[in-house]
């Protein structure tokens, strides 16, 4: 194609070729400059968004600590401490149906207090965290109920009590600490 063009335009030489090359290089530079501009602007926007998210996350964590955790440490402690006092309420000589009903009512009253004063508060902060903490609470509540009313479980025996009640309370507490510790403040409600 060039050969045909050169044969038809003998005045077209290296000078013209050089000019065309310069234009191509200028266009390429312009394209590269535009690409660098767009890329760095996108990077800046991403970085700005990331910083903004980090800032919001820090604020959420700070409020979570100051408005929810610190004022309710006592509620959490009260719940688990009071559940641990169950053993003191078990009469070593007698544990009939009415006694089991009384123990069950004690667990229910403590759980309702804990739910109203701590678990429900989490719903306004992070629905997933609230669901996880509530599930942890219900799992403990249901598991204790099951053990309490199982006629084959003798809760007056200290080893059985440790296995059926004490270890479940400890495990639920550890799970709660893990849920709170792993909350990153990422999700708004």
């Amino acid at each position, binding site marked *: 194609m060039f050969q045909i063009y050169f044969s038809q335009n003998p005045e077209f030489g290296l000078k013209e070729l050089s000019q065309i090359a310069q234009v191509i290089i200028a266009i390429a530079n312009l394209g590269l400059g535009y690409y660098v501009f767009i890329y760095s602007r996108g990077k800046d926007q991403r970085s700005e968004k990331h910083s903004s998210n980090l800032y919001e996350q820090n604020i959420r964590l700070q409020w979570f600590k100051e408005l929810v955790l610190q004022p309710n440490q006592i509620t959490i402690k009260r719940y688990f401490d009071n559940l641990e006092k169950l053993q003191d309420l078990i009469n070593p000589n007698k544990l009939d149906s009415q006694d089991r*009903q009384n123990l069950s*009512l004690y667990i229910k009253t403590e759980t309702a207090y804990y739910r109203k004063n701590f678990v429900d508060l989490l719903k306004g902060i992070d629905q997933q965290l609230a669901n996880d903490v509530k599930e942890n609470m219900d799992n403990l509540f249901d598991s204790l109920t099951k053990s309490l009313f199982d006629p084959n479980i003798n809760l007056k025996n200290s080893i059985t009590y440790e296995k059926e009640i004490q270890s479940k309370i400890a495990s639920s507490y550890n799970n709660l600490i893990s849920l709170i510790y792993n909350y990153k403040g990422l999700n708004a409600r």
Partner: protein
Amino acid sequence: MDNKQYNIDLQNYRTPKSNVFIGRLRGKKVREDSKIDENEPLVDKIVISIPNEIESINPSFLEEFLFNIVHRLGSAGFKQKVTFINDGLYKIENDLDEAIDRILTEENALA
């Protein structure tokens, strides 16, 4: 006026050898199997019988079992329309109040 009544006997939904109703999954299963949600608008009264041997019906179960009708009727409407019958030692009132409170709190949180 013809008063229509829908009866649910929890004996039909008991886990064999169990004397408690616990857990959200179980509550959901009983809600679906008993068809309480579908029948509630068609009747004037719902009567739920609790077997005498039952020793606890936990809020986790009740919350899921009654979620839709409490949501639909509200606390007062629910208590007016739904009656629990139990001659055993276990009394459902505390657990029921706790479950209703949970459902209505959940509703507010999601609003």
